[in-house]
């Protein structure tokens, strides 16, 4: 691969591509790191806004029509198409960056990993929050424990759903098998797995009544006795906060604030609210969008053999497995405002 400009193929031209991959790829293209060679989406109107950003890109309605060998194929379709597209791309000799969740089932995700191994292809998963400086710093603190042993953590994330969905497929259980857990939970659980490893026990409940959950709660207990509570909602505004309590202090990370942490250390009467900076240059660390761009940089660097993938398929599947475990052992959340008749009916729902 060397220093050649990498050709990228963007598959799926929905909201994620328009609002995230479009501007990210434009920046990387202007830096000569890659060039967007093709846009793939069955809908021409969907392709249009991206075609305006990348006028040189060829347009295809099907992935099979595009040349894929030695390309970087970015898959940002609805999850149920991820596996099929990724497997085809890898078998055609491409490296793949697949948007989260990696697939709509664990079997599909495993098939993607198996194909990557068989074809010796790169398979990365778009869990870009691992590239947040705040999350990288938290990993260091959780590993080195400068504030003493971690005692417990609470996570609240989510608010009234605001994503500009282009169809109802995102909300149909037949097309998207999960709700808030599969949507934002995949990031939360990926970070927890990266930071703390596999939990010993998992206790899960949600409020789905035949469809997708809008609220859920996960209790996680780790082998060293650490207990954590995760609360996710697409119903009302939560605190959007991760709070870690150590023996000698507390650290808070505010969701999506990629370069900021709050710290309280024993003896400090105040809370230290700090932006993260490079210790040498004092330059502020990566922002949220810069972290998104950085994940693509990581894949291009891996294609050139310069660094390992930060989130390979083997990492991406871990949160999917944990989500699968949650759904398999699901309990109905207690909703105490429901009447007795409603509760009885709710308990009979699958």
């Amino acid at each position: 691969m060397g220093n050649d400009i990498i050709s990228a193929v963007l598959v799926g031209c929905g909201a994620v591509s328009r609002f995230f991959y479009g501007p990210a790829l434009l920046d990387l293209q202007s830096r000569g790191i890659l060039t967007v060679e093709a846009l793939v989406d069955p809908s021409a109107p969907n392709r249009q806004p991206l075609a305006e950003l990348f006028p040189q890109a060829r347009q295809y309605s099907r992935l099979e029509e595009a040349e894929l060998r030695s390309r970087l194929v970015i898959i940002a379709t609805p999850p149920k198409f991820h596996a099929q597209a990724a497997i085809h791309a890898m078998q055609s000799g491409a490296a793949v960056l697949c948007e989260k969740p990696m697939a709509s089932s664990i079997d599909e995700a495993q098939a993607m990993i198996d194909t990557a191994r068989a074809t010796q292809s790169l398979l990365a998963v778009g869990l870009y929050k691992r590239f947040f400086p705040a999350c990288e710093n938290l990993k260091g603190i959780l590993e080195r424990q400068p504030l003493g042993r971690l005692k417990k953590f609470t996570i609240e994330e989510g608010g009234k759903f605001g994503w500009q969905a282009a169809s109802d497929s995102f909300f149909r259980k037949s097309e998207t098998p999960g709700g808030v857990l599969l949507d934002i939970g995949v990031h939360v659980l990926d970070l927890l797995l990266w930071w703390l490893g596999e939990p010993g026990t998992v206790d899960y409940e949600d409020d789905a009544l035949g469809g997708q959950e809008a609220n859920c709660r996960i209790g996680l207990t780790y082998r060293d006795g650490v207990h954590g509570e995760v609360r996710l909602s697409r119903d009302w505004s939560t605190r959007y906060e991760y709070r870690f309590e150590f023996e000698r202090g507390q650290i808070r990370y505010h969701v999506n604030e990629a370069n900021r942490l709050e710290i309280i250390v024993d003896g400090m009467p105040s809370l230290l609210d700090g932006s993260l900076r490079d210790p040498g240059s004092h330059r502020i660390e990566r922002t949220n969008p810069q972290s998104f761009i950085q994940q693509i940089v990581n894949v291009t660097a891996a294609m050139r053999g310069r660094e390992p993938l930060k989130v390979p398929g083997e990492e991406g599947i871990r949160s999917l497995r944990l989500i699968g475990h949650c759904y398999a052992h699901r309990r109905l959340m207690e909703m105490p405002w429901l009447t007795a008749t409603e509760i009885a009916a709710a308990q009979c729902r699958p």
Partner: protein
Amino acid sequence: MPPMKIALIGASGFVGTRIVEQWNLTGAFEIVPIVRSYSSLAVLARFELPWQVCDLFDVPALARAMEGCDAVVHAAIGDPGQIEQMAQSIYEAAEIAHVRRLVVLSSASVHGQAPEPGTDETSPLHERHSMAYNSAKVRAEKALHRLSASGNVEVVLLRPSVVYGPRSRWIADTARQLLEGSACLIGDGNAICNGIYVDNLIAAIELALQVPQAAGETFLVGDPAPMTWRSFYQQIADALGIDMATVGSIPPPIFPRSFKSKITDFAAQPAIQKLLPFIPGRLKRLTKLVLANWNEPPAENAWQLPAPVRFTTTEELSLLQQCQWQLPQQKAQKILGYIPKISAEEGMQRSLQWLKFAGYPVIKPGGPPAFT
């Protein structure tokens, strides 16, 4: 007999969400939820439902969404500029879809937030309210009367006042203000809160859908007995473990017409609404952005100690907390047979249990949520 099939417009709002929850679980009615955007499906999607997504001003699309329904419940909210037009579109669509009855959630605010003693359904309405919302609701009611006079769809208007319950802003906003120390009451707080627990409102909607004599009528509806605003705040404060002594008492503030409210009221005028489609979307978005940021607080002066947390209220809340009249329900009792089953105390308890479910630091009933 199969249950009535009801098109529920505004199914993703606070009242709509609870209607869906109740009717879907009890099977009381078959529901076709109608919402304005795909993102509004996020909470509705807890159920497998035959939802419809359409523009509420697109009459043919709305009529298609209502097709096959026996009746329509209009529970959609909108800004003052949209309320009248939305009511008209929904009525016209219901006509095309051959719907038998349209139940509309109007508001007791057509009489103002602090109605004169003696106010009932027969009290004359005017369009000179200080709040554009009230006048818009009056115009919407008048439009529906005008349309139903020559149309086939029966209209029933319900006028609830303060609707509270799970997901209600009255519960969540009051809790937030109590927690941040900005909660206050007008005077001693002993004004009347004409509240209605959401399940009581749903009971009234069910009757409005089914009682033949309700056609063409308007009903004020509320809880079995009202409470005072002090009592409303007290129950939420107790649940959060907050001393009511921290709740301020302020005289009724004067709300001068700010530039922002003048622009908003101007835009709500029917004549201006007709011109809005011709104004470029970017200009409308820019205006909204400017207005949204109009009240930026001034920067703090380094040579002054920080100001204490200010008690905050709104014009709507301030007026509501000056109400001295318990809105009557005799007409709803007589014609609809409306007897609210859930007391205000029970309604508040259920609302507080939701508050705890939503992660607020509720210490009673039942201690704090596990995740705080």
